[in-house]
């Protein structure tokens, strides 16, 4: 009986084995200038964006209710290029369609000459918005480069993506659970946008939205803000959304590797980005719904290095606070943990600094993974 009754009492029985739920794709494009400068011989942002737009279209083509979001991140901060709360998509679209007003037509055509106006509307809306905003954004970056800020704001962009995803998911959930119906401006615009598309995800369906994040980065610098990134990764893990990484440039990024590794995402270091569209439509096109059936094309040797809380550099061998597990490459000057402020035992600190034991241990295998090899456990007094 069990075998039979299970069929009826399970909510999701699909003969095809996979469900075809709508999904949200958030693309984060890291625009830090130095990274792009380094690979200027391989690909320009322009060329890349073309591929990304096709990729976005491809995602939208999967399902009428599919959603995309696009975030650009640079040294100056991160910004939503699509959806943009301050933008009226319907208006843009009507003017571009070229109604009777000749002047209007000219105006809009100047800014969006790339997009064929016969393009499928869902695609065109997104593509136009992204291109337009991206142009403005790049100009903005070019006009005020702040040399003091050298860190990428990838962590910020990641948090934005996560909160947006969360909101989209709760918006969908709120119909069945009545809680968390706080709909605010961002979702407002997308929701009404949907309605115009007549493909409301907010219909009373049992479908729940699935989501993933794709980060495209060319930055070769490894000194990202470790803690916020790790926190974002854990949040993503908890939300069960995958972070996929397209890494351009010359070096692997260990933090991005960790991000994809922890969230069951895909990490690929693309050395020749010319044919990136092929990567985007194969390896990076594995939807959450089929992810469990596909062997992910990701390499297994992830570098799990952590970075020092004080210097921000990555550490192979360092000290660990026994209270909060904060990692340090040097002994802090004030002899207390930089994260939890616990005082370290001066005796042990003295041992650590005076003995050549550190050197001796360094000769041991490096790959014994920070934890075991760290000569620490300094107890707070």
């Amino acid at each position: 009986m069990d075998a039979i009754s299970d069929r009826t009492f399970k909510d999701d029985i699909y003969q095809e084995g996979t469900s075809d739920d709508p999904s949200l794709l958030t693309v984060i494009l890291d625009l830090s200038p130095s990274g792009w400068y380094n690979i200027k011989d391989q690909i320009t942002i322009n060329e890349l964006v073309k591929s990304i737009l096709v990729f976005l279209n491809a995602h939208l083509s999967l399902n009428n209710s599919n959603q995309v979001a696009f975030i650009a991140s640079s040294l100056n901060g991160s910004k939503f290029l699509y959806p943009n709360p301050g933008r009226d998509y319907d208006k843009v679209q009507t003017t571009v369609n070229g109604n009777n007003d000749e002047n209007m037509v000219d105006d809009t055509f100047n800014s969006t000459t790339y997009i064929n106006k016969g393009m499928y509307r869902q695609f065109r809306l997104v593509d136009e918005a992204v291109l337009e905003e991206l142009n403005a954004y790049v100009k903005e970056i070019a006009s005020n480069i702040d040399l003091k800020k050298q860190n990428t704001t990838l962590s910020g962009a990641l948090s934005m993506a996560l909160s947006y995803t969360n909101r989209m998911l709760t918006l969908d959930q709120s119909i069945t659970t009545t809680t968390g119906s706080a709909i605010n401006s961002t979702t407002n615009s997308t929701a009404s946008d949907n309605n115009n598309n007549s493909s409301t995800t907010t219909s009373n369906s049992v479908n729940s939205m699935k989501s993933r994040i794709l980060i495209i980065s060319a930055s070769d610098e490894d000194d990202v803000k470790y803690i916020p990134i790790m926190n974002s990764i854990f949040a993503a893990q908890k939300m069960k959304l995958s972070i996929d990484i397209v890494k351009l440039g010359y070096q692997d990024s260990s933090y991005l590797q960790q991000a994809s590794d922890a969230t069951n995402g895909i990490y690929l270091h693309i050395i020749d980005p010319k044919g990136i569209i092929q990567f985007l439509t194969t390896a990076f096109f594995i939807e959450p719904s089929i992810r469990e059936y596909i062997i992910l094309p990701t390499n297994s040797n992830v570098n799990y290095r952590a970075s020092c809380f004080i210097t921000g550099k990555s550490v192979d061998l360092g000290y660990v606070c026994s209270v909060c597990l904060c990692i340090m490459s040097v002994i802090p000057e004030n002899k207390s943990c930089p994260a939890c402020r616990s005082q370290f035992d001066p005796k042990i600190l003295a041992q650590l600094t005076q003995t050549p034991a550190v050197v001796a241990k360094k000769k041991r295998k490096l790959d014994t993974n920070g934890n075991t090899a760290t000569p620490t456990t300094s107890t707070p007094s």
Partner: protein
Amino acid sequence: MLRASRGVLVQCDPSIRALILQIDNERPGIVLEELDDSHLLIKQDKIDVVKDELNKLLSKNIYNPFEEE
């Protein structure tokens, strides 16, 4: 030697299986093979007979709210 024989596989719980076997007792030639506790192989053209009989047997003990009134 390997053989393949045509038929209808019936999946059910043991109680239903017992009922089907009882039906088979009354009018033999229905069940081709008893596979395990929850599976039987039945002759292809007899499946409707089995369903009908089963329905009759199962309908015997049903509460009908309108009979009381």
